């Protein structure tokens, strides 16, 4: 998985948990909370959906890594690739 593909995975999840948001111009380097109506429960949803859909676990101490699309990609892409290599 590339980092761009990883960002799309996160965007697909956000599209479901924040269905009123326009995601066409999300800036990858800006905190998601600063450009979208997302609260702490929504971030728990992102964590839950990563677990449900992709088997990815994000420990609470690492939630901060989900701040922006760029940081999501940095943090999650190796996890996806590690899973794939096990697969």
């Amino acid at each position: 998985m590339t980092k761009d593909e990883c960002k799309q995975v996160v965007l697909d999840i956000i599209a479901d948990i924040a269905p009123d948001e326009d995601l066409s111009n999300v800036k990858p380097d800006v905190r998601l909370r600063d450009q979208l109506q997302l609260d702490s429960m929504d971030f728990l949803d992102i964590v839950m959906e990563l677990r449900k859909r992709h088997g990815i676990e994000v420990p609470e101490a690492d939630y901060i890594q989900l701040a922006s699309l760029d940081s999501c990609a940095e943090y999650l892409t190796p996890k996806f690739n590690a899973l794939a290599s096990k697969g």
Partner: protein
Amino acid sequence: MSSTLPRIVITGVGLTAPNGNSLAEFRKNLLTGVAGVERMEVRYMGTLLAGVCHYDALKYQKKKELRVGTRAGSISIYCAREALADAGLSVDALVKDRTGIYIGCTEHGNVETENEIYNISKFNYDTKFWSHYHNPRTVANNPAGETSLNLGTTGPAYTIGAACAAGNMGLIHAAQMLRLGEVDLAICGGVSESIHTFGIFAGFKSQGALASHEDPTKASRPFDKARNGIVVSEGGALYTLERLDDALRRGAKIYGEIAGYCVNSDASDYVLPNPQRQAECVRKALANARLEARDIHIVNTHATATPLGDIQECEAIRAVFGEGCPDTHINNTKSFIGHCMGAAGALELAGNLPSFDDLVVHPTINVDDLDPQCALPGLVLNVPKKAGRVDAILNNSFGMLGINSTLIVKRYAA
């Protein structure tokens, strides 16, 4: 009702029923014989009959609110907003800390709990897949709390758990709070999301009390010999209640005045009704309203189309209205919409309120062969009936564990 207590009036109605999403549409269908029962897929059970509401949930909520919240919350928000609009009250202009929300519920949380158990069943029952929304969705005050969030009101907002007597209870409690001066405006009534839990269907089926019929619109048939149980329905009806002086001061439309009420308990069985206590509830409500039985022009029955329950309520009504009440008409709204559980009393009252204006009594439909044990004088069967006068409506709602509620609304007269 003591004359020293403030008079309480109904100034707005918002509703969604299986056969209508406004009072006008609902009433029109009650007068033209349009039922609202349909086939629905129920988890684990297959195709069953249910009363399903088709209101526009996105009229007052965002998609995210619908995803996070509950069906009961959504129904409540829709009904509350519709009631406020009907009352001519702008949400922005509400005195937020003087507005109370009192919503009757049969139950709450079964739907959301079943959904979560079904969800984790897909993950080998690993509870780490259990939603963090479970608790806010299942707390008993959820429907009222979601409504306060949506409206931004900061006064009291809670639910009243009273089984199928709950719809009346919302209005009764609101009237009490207005009389006590706790709030200046009450948004009140009852809601139900019960069709989204298989458990209620399965429970009634195990009890031998779930209706079946090849034609869904004929499945709910109180008082008919061929009745075979309850059609479970969802719905909601919320009202704006105000003290009369406040309503007059702002020139509000007045649908009717809360004349009196009673709530009592059978203390005799978990499930079986008790005609003596029901009759007592009706009599006490009449006394509370300072009315005689003959003063009531419409008795809206609770009858759910169970073989025994209908007979027992008829026994109670016969005891109070059997003689000397030539102008008392008796009807049943569940024959159109099934049993809307916590919303039942509130919706059924709404369906009858327009009778103050048009003097027409909506019928009980689907009575092809009247059960002689239900043959009450004054029953309005299958077609509407023009009444000479309609000055008082008595609304019965009874529930499991033996809770009875009777609410009397009278025509407003200065």
